[in-house]
């Protein structure tokens, strides 16, 4: 970025400074540690200068926002045009209660919905399945059939909101239900905007709500890509997620490397299924974590954008700029929240919000202070949303695009994360791709090693967590936590009985048989799922048919 002569002068001046000013200062007062490290454990230097970024070519590597390689942002004006989407992940108990929470969030200025489903829904079991016992409505809303989905979006015009659904293995079924609800509102699928997570690879790696083995899972995903390209063109068909990889304990560079490796696997699968890269790639989206080390995180998002653009252009020969743009949702890091002194979490979330925004996120969920203890109360959720609004309207960081660009440190760090992530991708390629690397347990093992190291650093006091291993106080147990009514399970069971009594059971049997045949063949299964959903076949029935044909994934248990 600088000419050779200038760099030589800077190097000389730095040497001089080290020998005089710095040496004198260190002699008087040494630094508090021998080595300083980033949140991810990388060594960080005392000082960065133009010398550290001399090999970066501004035009080709950093460039301009909205232009390849998108290091400076997805879009040319960023938040000067409009703020990111403030999207609070919510859902609990019944569809009725969650519907109320959504309406509240919209009234409070939330600009997108984000649906949390309970675990039975995420694993494709109805609320009356034996394994659902005790889990119904606990971590999200219970959805058993189209009837629940109708209640969930009651009074919310689906052509006006964008809805993100955290659903993976049964994503096809929930998307079909969403399309069916829209039909009943008179909204055609081409008007629908939103995202399904649909990223099953990271379920095997880190999140755990898988159902089917890898091969049929990849088929379901490419079926969705194909179906949406034709019928639901504004829908983001996948949210390739690093969030949970980071939550499981990875470093920032691993988060980028493993997530983009998953992304590569999806693109390869879709191309193999006969799709054209520029037809589906513009609808791919990503989902990253916002951890505590603000500058490292900003560098991470910038590195991810640049690396993905290069991969799409050079590896997959994408032609459309939109295929190369990495757009992403962010959530603040749940794993950094402490059960001790929970109000401190408000500050942590505020810093993570800054990181996500200075890193150029397209949408953001901010965690609530009480999430290390339970699901958040309405009051806590409101503070979390207000945190985003304060950053958006008061902090000033939104007023210029990519404000940290050009920082010697942030540019050097961006480059370093890009290179480290690329090294992971290369390693995964050598193992035979992400799917194979997961089967071998390679990715899980790398994450687990990082997580263990992190925990040991906390226990040795090398890593300080305020309120946990320093500045502790005796506390009263917190009061007023959100409790999910334990009768939700029974209520859902009753609803299933009602649905089954009212629907046309003959039509259900027929549609499920047709779906089974489609699963056994090679056709796109989406239209068959939609047919079954319209007849009020339950999620468990539909996933049951697919379980019969596809079988279930067996986790490789590693320590």
């Amino acid at each position, binding site marked *: 970025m600088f000419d050779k002569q200038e760099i030589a002068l800077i190097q000389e001046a730095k040497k001089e400074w080290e020998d005089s000013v710095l040496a004198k200062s260190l002699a008087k007062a040494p630094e508090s540690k021998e080595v300083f490290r980033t949140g991810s454990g990388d060594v960080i230097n005392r000082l960065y200068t133009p010398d550290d970024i001399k090999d970066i070519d501004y035009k080709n590597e950093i460039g301009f926002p909205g232009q390849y390689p998108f290091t400076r942002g997805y879009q040319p004006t960023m938040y000067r045009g409009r703020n990111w989407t403030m999207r609070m992940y919510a859902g609990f108990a019944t569809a009725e209660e969650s519907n109320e929470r959504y309406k509240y969030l919209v009234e409070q200025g939330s600009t997108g919905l984000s649906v949390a489903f309970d675990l039975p829904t995420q*694993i494709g079991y109805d609320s009356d399945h034996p*394994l659902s016992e005790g889990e119904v409505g606990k971590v999200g809303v219970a959805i058993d059939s189209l009837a629940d989905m109708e209640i969930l979006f009651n009074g919310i015009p689906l052509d006006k909101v964008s809805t993100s659904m955290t659903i993976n293995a049964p994503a096809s079924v929930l998307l079909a239900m969403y399309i069916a609800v829209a039909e009943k509102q008179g909204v055609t699928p081409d008007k629908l905007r939103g995202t399904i997570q649909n990223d099953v690879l990271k379920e095997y790696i880190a*999140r755990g*709500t898988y159902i089917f083995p890898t091969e049929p899972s990849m088929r379901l995903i490419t079926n969705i890509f194909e179906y949406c390209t034709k019928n639901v063109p504004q829908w983001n068909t996948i949210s390739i997620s690093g969030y949970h990889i980071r*939550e499981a304990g990875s470093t920032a560079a691993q988060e980028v490397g493993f997530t983009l490796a998953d992304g590569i696997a999806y693109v390869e699968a879709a191309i193999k299924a006969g799709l054209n890269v520029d037809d589906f790639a513009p609808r791919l989206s990503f989902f990253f974590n916002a951890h505590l080390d603000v500058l490292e995180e900003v560098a991470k998002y910038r590195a991810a954008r640049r690396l993905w653009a290069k991969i799409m252009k050079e590896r997959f020969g994408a032609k459309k700029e939109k295929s190369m743009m990495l757009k992403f949702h962010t959530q603040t890091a749940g794993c950094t929240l402490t*059960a001790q002194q929970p109000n401190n979490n408000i500050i942590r979330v505020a810093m993570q919000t800054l990181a996500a925004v200075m890193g150029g996120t397209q949408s953001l969920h901010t965690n609530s202070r009480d999430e290390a*203890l339970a699901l958040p109360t309405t009051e806590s959720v409101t503070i979390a949303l207000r945190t985003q609004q304060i950053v958006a309207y008061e902090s000033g960081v939104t007023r210029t695009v990519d404000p940290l660009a050009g920082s010697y440190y942030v540019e050097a760090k961006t480059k370093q994360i890009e290179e480290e992530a690329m090294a992971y991708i290369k390693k995964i390629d050598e193992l035979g791709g992400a799917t194979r690397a997961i089967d071998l347990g390679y990715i899980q093992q790398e994450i*687990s090693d990082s997580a263990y190291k992190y925990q040991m650093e906390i226990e040795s006091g090398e890593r300080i967590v305020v309120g946990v291993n320093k500045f502790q106080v005796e506390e009263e147990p917190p009061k007023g936590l959100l409790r999910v009514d334990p009768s939700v399970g029974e209520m859902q069971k009753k609803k299933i009985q009602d649905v089954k009594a009212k629907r046309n059971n003959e039509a259900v049997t027929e549609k499920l048989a047709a779906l089974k045949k489609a699963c056994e063949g090679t056709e796109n299964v989406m239209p068959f799922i939609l047919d079954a959903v319209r007849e009020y076949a339950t999620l468990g029935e539909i996933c049951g048919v697919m379980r019969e044909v596809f079988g279930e994934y067996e986790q490789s248990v590693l320590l």
Partner: protein
Amino acid sequence: MEKPIRVLVAKPGLDGHDRGAKMIARALRDAGMEVIYTGLRQSPEQIVAAAIQEDVDVIGMSILSGAHNHLLPKVVELLREQGAGDILVFGGGVIPEEDIPGLKAAGIAEVFTPGTTTTETIEFIKNNVKKN
């Protein structure tokens, strides 16, 4: 030489958050215990069967789904039914303080919440395990 303590680390319920379970398993192993980790989505019946088959002294269960009040007592109940009530059972995860007395009354010896060190857990096991 003293026989090492055998521990089953289990994930009851449907949640996939196994960072804590893996962490504890590894720390207990590093502390010289023999550790078996079940993997995800284990029913109380599966956990009890594994514990008896592996002849463990301790069961540690990690749960973050909110189904702890239902699943953890079930494991103790099944252990007692099958004559294995002497196995030390503890739990950990996102478990509200006010649920802990009930769990202890049901026979869960200790419940560790976020922020607990692995050293505390190791000490707890060493001090409370019933050696045959």
